């Protein structure tokens, strides 16, 4: 069965890029525009998510908060959560790591590398 990935980003272009890349590779993709929006995929009856890719700064609820919310749920204690970041954001990385992120994807990322990272995380 194909894996389900949730993409959370407030930038439409990035959402579309990730969506396209992942969907082309056979992943099932859900999309959220910010943390709050993304949380709707974590309801009791919603389809299980296998991995989350999220941006850090978003309106309403940022990536870290989203992460904390997800980690609060027992079901998702070990859900891989990846952050999108730029190379320069070392502080951000550490912040994310401390909050319990699985890892990060450094922009720019080529589709190949993105898929490699995902394969790794989903193994």
């Amino acid at each position: 069965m194909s894996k389900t990935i949730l993409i959370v980003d407030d930038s439409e272009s990035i959402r579309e890029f990730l969506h396209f890349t992942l969907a082309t590779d056979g992943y099932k993709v859900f999309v959220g525009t910010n943390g709050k929006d993304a949380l709707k995929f974590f309801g009791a009856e919603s389809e299980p998510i296998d991995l989350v890719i999220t941006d850090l700064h978003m309106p309403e609820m940022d990536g870290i908060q989203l992460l904390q919310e997800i980690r609060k749920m027992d079901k998702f204690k070990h859900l891989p959560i990846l952050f999108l970041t730029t190379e320069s954001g070392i502080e951000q990385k550490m912040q994310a790591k401390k909050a319990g992120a699985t890892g990060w994807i450094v922009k720019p990322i080529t589709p190949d590398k993105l898929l490699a990272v995902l394969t790794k995380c989903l193994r």
Partner: protein
Amino acid sequence: MDQFAQKYIEEATEIIAKLEQLILEVEKQPQNLDMINEIFRLMHTLKGGGAMFGFSKVTDVTHELESIYDYIRNGKAKIDNELLNISLDIVDYVKVLINPNAQIDEHEHELKVNSLTALKEKFKKNCSSKNTENSDSNSKIKDKNVKVDKDKDVSNEQKITIDESQNNKIIEDETNSIDEKQNDEIIEDEIEKLIELNNSDELIKNFNQKVENKVADKPINTIVQTPEEIKKIQNIENKKSVKTYKVFFKPHIDILKNGTDPLLLLRELYELGLSKVFTVTDTVPVLDKLTYDNTYLCWLVLLVTDNKNAIDDVFIFVEDDAFIDIEVLYEGNAFDDEDFVLNIDKFVNYQIKKYKKNCVIEEFIPSTSTKITPESNNTDAEPIKNEKKVDNLDDKNKETEQSQNVVVKDKEKILHEKILELEKVTKETQLKEKQKEHNNNNSEKNITDEKIKPENISEKVEKIDIFDEQEKEENKFIETEVEKNLNSDKLSKQVTTISSLRVSAEKVDTLMNLVSELITTQARLSVFVESNTNPELEYIAENIQKLSRQLRDNAFELSMVPLQSVVLRFQRLVRDLSAQLNKNIEFKTEGSSTELDKRIIENLIDPIMHLLRNSLDHGIEHKSTRKKLGKPERASVFLNAFYSGTNVFIQVGDDGRGINAEEIKSIAIKKGLLKPNVEYKVDEILNVIFEPGFSTSFEVSEVSGRGVGLDVVKRKVSELRGEIKVETELNFGTVFTIKLPLTLSIIDGLLVLIGNTRYVIPMSVVHKIYAIDHIDLKKSHYNLLVLDNQQVPYYYLREEFDEKSKILEKEQVLVINHEDKMVAIIVDKVIGEYQAVIKTLGKLYHDQQIFSGATILGDGTVALVMDVRKIIDKFSVIEK
């Protein structure tokens, strides 16, 4: 990828517009954290997308700005005018950057980025100086730490660390001679080791060269045992470009807590090719000091593979949490080399020793990589270091142990640095000097080791604790700030969030066209049903009528855009122009949520810009003049919009000098636009400024330039079936009012009959309808009718259209409100109200002066839509 880049450009354009607006608004209310947060986020999005889709220059500039706004939103710095100017400048620059056709000067770009970086540094410094101010009450030691921490300059940092070490030394120097000796011995040992290591580096070099020079005669597979590995060897032999890599991996002590299992990483490495893994166990403390979830081990892996990227990939998530050093050791398979295999232990020992010097020493300080790569020895890693230091000091025992370690290790580190720095000074003299120093101090003080050490340690601990607290406080501050922002965000967001779709304008136009067609067809259906009395069909037709009306209204709404969407441009224009003209001008807008048809708005931008420019340039007086007149120095220019009936009014005005009607009159007379010796109303005189002839000549400057291009403005407005008029009062200001229909495509019309042809007259202009006898027309003089005791000029369209059919006894008079005057037009029959979907006439009919379009009636015939204003203009000219 291109399609996404395209998307990014679209998105960025939108973001830029938002940014521009926000920056302008922040200028008015610099305390508004919501806005600053929003700016920060937008910059972040711009940056992220830029990095993703190859707009690296966008990323360069936005990154710096983002950081600056980060300081501001965290309350560490204040927003100022300079920053806003630069922000706007950068926003403009990003506009250029995302334009794929733009040529970008690399040099200029560099300058821009550099100036931004400088600005960022300025902000950084400001906020760090603020921090030190805050902590003034704390001890000096802490101050020093803050300095070490905050100072960005690497060399400075080193200097300060050295200073500190000297302090330490002095403290230590106060210990008794036995300890002294021990210390010195340690120092000597370290230096010896260092020398040895330096030499060993050379040894390795030599060795490597030797290995390289040697052609592998025959592989001696002393390492290979399992069939799996034999397979690997075969794999390697098949590949030509294999290299032997040396991978040193020292995970951060807390790596297990982050959920990373180093073993898995090693396994992955192992799977990449022929490999041998050496574990460094010296770093593991004795049992009672050992914390079970700390990672003390580090590994050296010798790996033969052809894929360097794969190695990088293994460490993709841990590169910041570990010290990783990947180096090509040997081109080819080093395990083929007999010499290498025999000496492998020696080699590994050298390597491990070398790494110990560089990083294992600081095993309790994470981000060891900062030591090795100078570029990354930046400020970002600095706070983390301290944080982690604190983390590790949970256990009291451990604290003591580590503090001791730190002291000794610091010393090693510093010594190492000194040796590197002071190449000229020989190690011996250095030692001698130290010994002297120590001896001198020794004679002065005589305190036992037991006494001074714990003190020293507690001091250290205190230092760290203070740090901890400060950091916590800072974090708390940031957290509460963030929370506050978020809370207020939520409130304001509920109002402002538009979960909108972006649809291309083209699609909306197509939709509108289709809806128009549907409405037309529906009208035909209604007509058809009326003649075929089938109750069932009637019911369906009615339903369709209802639905298509709703659909029309909805589609109509889609193409409506709030004036707000263009107001930003005006704001920017006013801001830039007032700076340019050195005038203090406030721009106010009211009713910017007023919605108008997209096409109307598009066509209105230029006229409004023009009016604003006129107001700013010529309407508003200079500061000094305003002062003399007793006017407030800050002039205001406004843009108001409001609905009235089926019309939208847009006003552009100022509180400037106004227009001098007398001057206009004299110029107009000179130009032949007005007749001399005729009494004109003020309105009539002012309307002259919209005349084409008025605008082009020298009078412009004399009459405060009011005439420039106003004829163009008027023409544009007329094309939109709108009207423009001007009101002015000398020294108090001028207001231009533009009256426009709500939409261009569907109008409420009045269907009338002239002869045998049906026409549509826009309902919005019809004031009253009268019925009069035809005979009354014949009796009238000078085309004037008396209606309700008022004389109204009339146009007999039947005559004007040259209709030859039979004249009716009763005529219908439509009184039309035209530019504040009453004008009557006479038609044969009024059929009734009609919702007309206006279609533009083809190019062939472009020059005609009577009709603004055509519409298809329910029975499929075409009715022309009259442009009443044009008709009146046309026929009144003929009359003259």
